[in-house]
């Protein structure tokens, strides 16, 4: 079998040639080492721009919302799950999308690499299966990829896209090595005061740039609650009360929908621990309803339906 990257290119070429899609949304090499950038290929001659490696972080499902026409999309497992949520929530027409699924072993968290380089800037980088070598002014280092994966990738339980039309690459074996909710459990074990401090510290950093919201495929509201003015739900300042309101409500809005793709965390310019909120909400939904979003096109959104035996501990 050829590399997933080559398979992607091959399928993309075929889909474009056969007129099955108008555009292929995939990744291309970014302008900064170890970054990729979304890429829109409309011409079969350009499929060579498409890449697939551990830098392919952005959740491309975002671009399917509000898009018209037939679209091919390169989707790693979490992107595919976002697409599923989009379909289930009537935002994406299943027949308008050709999902080129790619089994994924996780993507790199550049912030983690930066942290160990201690201020040295990467000027060049290359990757193979499990190593990343980075080069800069007067240094060269080989890093183990596994240690620099995004947190969401480390705890990932769905490395294979649950829904796809074409699979590029071989299915991977799912791992369940670590406890998915380990970090959350640690946080839960803390005292309310400690938790308050944690969230105050993290959310206090927010500059309200809305990168987290805008990269999230599931934040597709035509008008976000923070932008609403009649009434105004949430102040626009960077006061802690406002930033908390924003992040907590956003987490609640993606409750039962968030697939933990980690895009928000990666996008945050202030390195906020956003997953502490989203993962906690995911955990609650899991515990209450034994539900994971984005795995099936048949299942209705868990918080959109009501069943007689739904847990309702909150009403006593």
């Amino acid at each position, binding site marked *: 079998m050829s590399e997933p990257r080559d398979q992607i290119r091959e399928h993309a070429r075929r889909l474009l040639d056969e007129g099955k899609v108008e555009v292929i949304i995939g990744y291309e090499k*970014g*302008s*900064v080492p170890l*970054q*990729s*950038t*979304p*890429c*829109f290929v409309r011409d079969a001659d350009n499929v060579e721009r498409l890449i697939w490696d551990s830098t392919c972080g*952005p959740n491309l499902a*975002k*671009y399917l919302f509000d898009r018209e026409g037939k679209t091919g999309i390169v989707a790693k497992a979490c992107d595919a799950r976002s697409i599923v949520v989009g379909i289930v929530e009537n935002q994406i027409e299943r027949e308008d999308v050709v999902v080129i699924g790619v089994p994924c072993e996780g993507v790199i968290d550049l912030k983690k690499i*930066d*942290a160990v*380089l*201690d*201020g*040295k*800037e990467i*000027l060049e980088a290359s990757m193979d299966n499990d190593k990343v070598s980075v080069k800069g002014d007067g240094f060269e280092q080989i890093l183990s990829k596994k240690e620099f994966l995004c947190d969401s990738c480390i705890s990932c339980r769905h490395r294979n896209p649950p829904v796809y039309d074409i699979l590029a690459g071989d299915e991977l074996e799912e791992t369940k090595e670590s406890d998915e909710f380990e970090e959350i459990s640690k946080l839960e074990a803390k005292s309310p005061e400690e938790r308050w401090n944690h969230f105050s*510290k993290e959310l206090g*950093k927010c*500059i*309200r*740039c*809305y*990168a987290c*919201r*805008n*990269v999230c495929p599931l934040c597709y509201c035509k*008008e976000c609650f923070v*932008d609403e003015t009649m009434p105004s739900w949430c*102040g*626009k*300042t*960077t*006061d802690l009360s406002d930033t908390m309101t924003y992040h907590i409500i956003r987490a609640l809005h993606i409750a039962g929908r968030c697939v933990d793709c980690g*895009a928000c965390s*990666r*996008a945050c*310019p*202030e*390195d906020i621990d956003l997953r502490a909120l989203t993962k906690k909400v995911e955990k609650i939904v899991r515990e209450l309803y034994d539900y994971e979003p984005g795995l099936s096109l048949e299942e209705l959104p868990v918080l959109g339906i009501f069943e007689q035996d739904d847990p309702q501990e909150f009403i006593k």
Partner: protein
Amino acid sequence: MILRSSSNRSVVLKMKEKTIEKKDLSGFIDSLLEEYQVFAPTIAEGIPRFDRISSSTQVSLDSPKLERSPKEVFFPQCETLFTYQLIDGKMTMEEPPALESERVLLFVRPCDVKALTLMDSVFTSWEPKDTNYLDKREKTIIVGRACSRPWSTCFCTSLGVDPFGKEGMDLVFEDIGDKYVVEALTERGGKIIDGSSLFKDAEKKDLENLKEVSKKATEAIRSELDVKEIEKKLKAIYDDSFWGKVSEKCVGCGVCSYLCPVCHCFDVQDEGTELKGKRVRIWDACQYPIFTLHASGHNPRTSSRERIRQRMMHKFSYFIENFGELACVGCGRCIKGCPGNMDIREVLTGIMATEAD
């Protein structure tokens, strides 16, 4: 006090260069703290930014990341314009008091200082002047630092910004290894080092070293762009399909604007109730769909195509028309910050390469 405005900059003096040993720097900073409010690059919670310090130990000159722009020292993200309160049926308003003492902003890169002068144009070049900004700007002594370590994303030189430029600074520190060459550019700048025994007159060797370092740093800037007559180009391609393509991957967040040292758009909001509260101004960004949304529902910039175009036009065309300068200093923050790795250098190259259709 020296009056300063965009049109009437303080008199630039030529004073003799001094040097200070690096080990003495903290002593100098601590001595400043006795007299001034001091702002300097710090790292808090992993985020490098310009912040008020209370001790020289907080200063961080080699941050692992590009620090947040110093614009927030003059134009905070959230700034109270005034507070109001209804007491016994009578409404009273109170503006925050003007700064009581002078401030020193330490170690700003030339590009960021340049950005401040650009912002001056917006806030102070016509009446009514923005008093909130002006007050802070007038009462702050800018201590620059020559940029001897540019980042890979820097492209200042292409936009006419010199990493060893001194425009807009009151005092500049230039790193030549174990010491800094220090040059007072204005009286105010000279004032803060006058009488300090830590500063010695520069020797010839130091100045030679400085030349060397400066040359190296300028060479280290890898990105070279040709943006000659870009404003004309932009006018020509205003309706070009280029904008559709270039905007396709933009998700419409405000990272680029918020990290940009020149972006200055803001929103005004009331926080509180009819009885008591404050009116604040908050950074805003032209990439947000609601930025130009009218109450009627009409929006002149409906999609990211128009919004990206506005951003580029503003920086590279409209600003030139109004002030004769580009509203970009090539600091590269937006490149590093963009979650989709949208690279303004590529956009600029794309603009220059586009023939109007």
